[in-house]
């Protein structure tokens, strides 16, 4: 890490709590971490953690662990499960590095990975399907669409977080649904898993309208075994919700959500502008941060503490400079940490708690820590047949190179040409040079796709030198799908799952994850009435050809005069003759009139 951030210090406290097996302390913790971010945003990071002993988990005696989830995991033999629901985009340029170092977020949509205990790959996959189907029902998400084409087995990108004991043969399976829209129906089951269920404690702040209105939000569920050195194990469930709220947007009342201009008398004008007058104004950005309170931002107040957690726990923490004054409801006690920015609050037991920051000017700013790596992935090229992928990695550090694993799982209908993999590097001098890809890529794991069976899995171990930007490109071909394989909104394009980047940082035990945005791949889309047109057209052509040939074979060939004579004997010819006669009579009359 380049900047020893307070956030990671905060994480470190939690990490020590994890590692030290304090059995006597309550097995449930919850914490809310708030940090105002630039551009009037607010990061709210909720964390809920419950432990249960391995023995009572195996005997299905559930207390802090939700029964429904526990049974699913036992049924699918899943030893460790990570589930992510994410929407929006983390703006790393203005917000800095990600909460939890990105380890508690997923790619856009739903992401799920699990270590499954199974004797071989086939059984592991069968259990994985059981797991996705059951979780799909539990969380009201379309995880049942995670089939073999969307499942990969990453080799280097993920490591188990828990301590796995015993002779298990664990299989890691990973699935993504980049097109899944995360919404309130996923939050309700998420809240039901909590022992206090959103009735008390920090979970009372959850409101689906605010949560899914956030600029970026990520919900995660992690289940992992935690074992002490002596060998007694616990099963831990950790749920987090991270969101970045736009303070101004959240403060708007739900009845009147339309943004309105400030009244004239509240505008701060730039008087140095020559056109500044009574009726013209160039509004200035306010130097002071916006005023906000929990009630305004979340639409509710925090309702006491969850009694299952340690009653002395400081369950709400705020990261603002210490010089800022903050008002809280009575009964809450404030503890300021030595770092100069973090302060935590012990909450009153059963009274509602609110926290408000008035608008004020401060001189210190909370430092934003720079992310270790910038990553960006786009689809380039044009046309219906081919395209290209371009991935840009930027290393902001001036001193150290960044080593990381780049993991991509591509759908089978995007067929990459790995031989076209090219790398260009832009160094400090700003000169762009082509270099062989092998200079950057130290290791490759590539598993090609099989049509309609599995997707491409590409894992690259990369190293980006200090203060340089590396661009990787490769070409791909777009497959033509079968008629029934198109979704109802085929012209929207097909979602390509975000790439996962795991930064290898030897010093830090906890890996840093970065995910790119998901991509939209336009495929050649047919006109869907085509099959019927084809059927009718082909039938017509065949019928025409058949009719001609059949007639030639069957009909008798006679001269025209003979044919007329033959025809005149038939009923049809007589009828035609009558008709001709009637017509002629009319024509005659007309000529007479003339």
């Amino acid at each position, binding site marked *: 890490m380049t900047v020893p951030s307070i956030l990671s210090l905060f994480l470190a406290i939690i990490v020590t709590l994890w590692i030290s097996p304090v059995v006597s302390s309550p097995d449930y913790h919850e914490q809310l971490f708030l940090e105002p971010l630039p551009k009037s945003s607010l990061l709210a990071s909720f964390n809920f953690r419950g432990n249960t002993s391995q023995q009572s988990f195996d*005997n*299905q*005696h559930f207390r802090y662990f939700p*029964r429904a989830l526990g*049974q699913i995991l036992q*049924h699918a033999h899943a030893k460790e499960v990570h589930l992510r629901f994410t929407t929006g985009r983390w703006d790393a340029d203005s917000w800095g590095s990600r909460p939890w170092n990105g380890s508690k977020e997923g790619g856009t949509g739903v992401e799920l990975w699990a270590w499954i205990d199974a004797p071989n790959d086939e059984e592991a996959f069968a259990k994985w399907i059981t797991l996705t189907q059951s979780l799909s029902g539990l969380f009201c998400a379309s995880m049942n669409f995670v089939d073999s084409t969307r499942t990969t087995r990453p080799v280097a990108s993920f490591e188990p977080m828990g301590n796995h004991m015993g002779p298990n043969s664990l299989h890691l399976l990973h699935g993504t649904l980049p097109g899944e829209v995360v919404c309130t129906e996923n939050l309700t089951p998420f809240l039901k898993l909590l022992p206090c*269920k959103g009735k008390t404690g920090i979970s009372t702040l959850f409101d689906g309208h605010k949560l899914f209105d956030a600029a970026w939000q990520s919900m995660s569920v992690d289940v992992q075994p935690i074992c002490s050195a002596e060998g007694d194990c616990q099963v831990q469930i950790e749920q987090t919700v991270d969101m970045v709220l736009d303070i101004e947007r959240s403060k708007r009342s739900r009845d009147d959500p339309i943004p309105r201009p400030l009244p004239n008398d509240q505008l701060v004008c730039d008087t140095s502008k020559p056109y500044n007058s009574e009726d013209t104004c160039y509004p200035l950005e306010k130097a002071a941060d916006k005023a906000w309170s929990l009630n305004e931002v979340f639409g509710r107040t925090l309702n006491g503490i969850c*009694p299952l957690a340690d009653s002395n726990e400081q369950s709400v923490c705020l990261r603002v400079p210490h010089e800022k004054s903050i008002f809280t409801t009575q009964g809450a006690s404030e503890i300021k940490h030595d770092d100069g920015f973090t302060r935590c609050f012990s909450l009153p037991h059963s009274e509602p708690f609110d926290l408000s920051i008035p608008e004020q000017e401060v001189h210190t700013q909370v430092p934003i820590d720079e992310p270790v790596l910038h990553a960006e992935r786009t689809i380039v090229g044009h046309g219906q047949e081919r395209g290209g992928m371009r991935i840009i990695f930027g290393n902001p550090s001036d001193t150290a190179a960044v080593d990381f694993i780049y993991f991509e799982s591509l759908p089978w209908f995007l067929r990459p040409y790995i031989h076209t993999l090219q790398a260009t590097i832009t160094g400090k001098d700003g000169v762009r040079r082509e270099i062989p890809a092998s200079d950057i890529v130290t290791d490759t794991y590539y598993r090609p796709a099989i049509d309609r069976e599995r997707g491409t899995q590409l894992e690259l171990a990369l190293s980006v030198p200090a203060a340089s930007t590396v661009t990787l490109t490769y070409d791909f071909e777009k497959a033509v799908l079968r008629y029934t394989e198109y979704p109802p909104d085929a012209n929207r394009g097909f979602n390509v799952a975000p790439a996962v980047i795991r930064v290898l940082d030897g010093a830090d035990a906890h890996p840093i994850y970065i995910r790119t945005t998901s991509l939209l791949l336009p495929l050649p889309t047919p006109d869907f009435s085509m099959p019927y047109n084809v*059927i009718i057209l082909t039938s017509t052509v065949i019928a025409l050809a058949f009719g001609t040939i059949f007639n030639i074979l069957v009909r008798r060939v006679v001269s025209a005069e003979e044919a007329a*004579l033959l025809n005149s004997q038939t009923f049809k010819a007589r009828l035609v003759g009558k008709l001709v006669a009637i017509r002629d009579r009319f024509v005659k009359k007309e000529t007479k009139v003339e």
Partner: protein
Amino acid sequence: MTNKKGDQESPKALANSTSQSATQRVPPPETSEAIHTRFRVIAAFWAVIIFLGFPIWWKTTSIYRAHLPIQEMVDWDDGKICRPVFPLEIHVATPQMQISESQHLLRTTQHTLDDLNEFAAHHLRLKPVNDTSASTPDEEHNVDAIGNAVEEGAEIALTVRVLSQEGLVSPRSELHADTTQLDVFYPPNHVPLPSSSNPPLSAFIAKELQGLYSEEKATIGHILSGETAGFDSESISRRLRRSMKYADTYHLSFSLFTPGPAPSSWDIENAVKEYLSPLLHAFAPISNFTIDTQVQLYATFSPMAPPPVYDEGEAAWTLRKEDLSAFINAAEWPLNPSIGSGPTLNFILYVPAPSQSPLVVKENRASSWIVPQWGGVYLLNPTLLTDQSGQSNPPYLTHESLRPAFMTFSHQLLTLLGTPTTPASLPLRLQTLTRVRAATLLLSASSTMGSLARLTESLPSIPIPATVASSVSTTLSHLSATCSYLRDGRFAAALASARVAETEAERSFFEKSMVGQVYFPDEHKVAVYLPLLGPIGVPLLVSLLKEVKRMIARRKANKAPAASN
């Protein structure tokens, strides 16, 4: 005809010229060779259609329908093949009697029993045993006996020990609550004389036995024929309605619900071990059980449910009986069924908030009730703790305080599983349950077979895969095995094979691939292929008709000269 045309004075020169010249230019009659060729061409086309096109179409669009023994299946459903009988073997030990005396006693008792019995399918057979030691089989032994009975002969339903006891005026009986043994004590002077045709002791034993099995008899009668003999029909059908459908495995889910933060833990492991495990162990030959438990805090009532009302007279919060159905907040309480095959039985221990304690049912001050085919609820009102902030529930429930709740739960479990209420001995009730379940499964598998037969008959368009046929044959063979086991009095074996029959019957009935094809009507195929079949079919048909017409005409022409000759 030409005259007519001339009358109309057609102005067209061409028409005139043709009509005039037509008389000279009649086409030569077709050669027989040409007619033959045409006939062959048309015949060739039709041959291709009939011998190649039609079979290919038939082959590619036909659906596989495995052969099913429809008649046999329907016969099972109609009860024509098997008439289930339940011969119960009862051993009678008379250690203090002479052999001739005991034989006489047995004979007269059997007579009396047969006279009393109105329901032929269920009858008791008495058998003497010489084993005077009359070892009282303990419960484990009994369970093993049921388990092993698959290989053995008829099971011993009951052992009657007839013992003399001084100082008795009339005979009395004593049923052991945890074994299958009935002790009958009689005054020594009641030993039946060989001369008496109806000794009072025989009558007494017969009456006792009849009483023991009257509920079972009524239940089986109700299942087999829908009517009951001699027992309260209403209570039997209510009990059958309440009880769960038979399953191999039941999931028992015990949940502690409370509207506040406490109690947040309970000594559930010990409570289950102490209060439930013995019962579940006794059930092992009939069904398996899995147990899971959970604690759910902040479980509030549904907003639609009427809240409890404080009753001054009772000094308690009361729920009205008719509101109990809304007690469980299905939307918010996590009571989803357990994963895995088999139904889930939910047992809810509800600890009311201190402000609403004690909570009882208004009408009868009851604290528990059964939700038919779903589970049971128990309202636990623990002693409240008082401190400076007011009253609160204890944070932890000891297994001692869970005792009444789990006693109620075991009772509810027995009811939900369909165990009869009499007799008092649990092993006897479980035996009864075995027989009742075997009868139920036999009937339900038979009726599934009948439904499947009717379904395949009425929907000729659904495919019948080979797996269905094999499932059906497994079902039928297990059904007849069940029937013969029942006849031999081997009820545990009968239940085992009825279980197989039921599973296979359900599997064949709910075969997935049978359902899918139903919704693909023929009209769609016609709509897609009509553009092809129409334009091709019309010339083919017309040519065929012409050819047929021509042949008929020729035959007539041939006949006409022959007739004139």
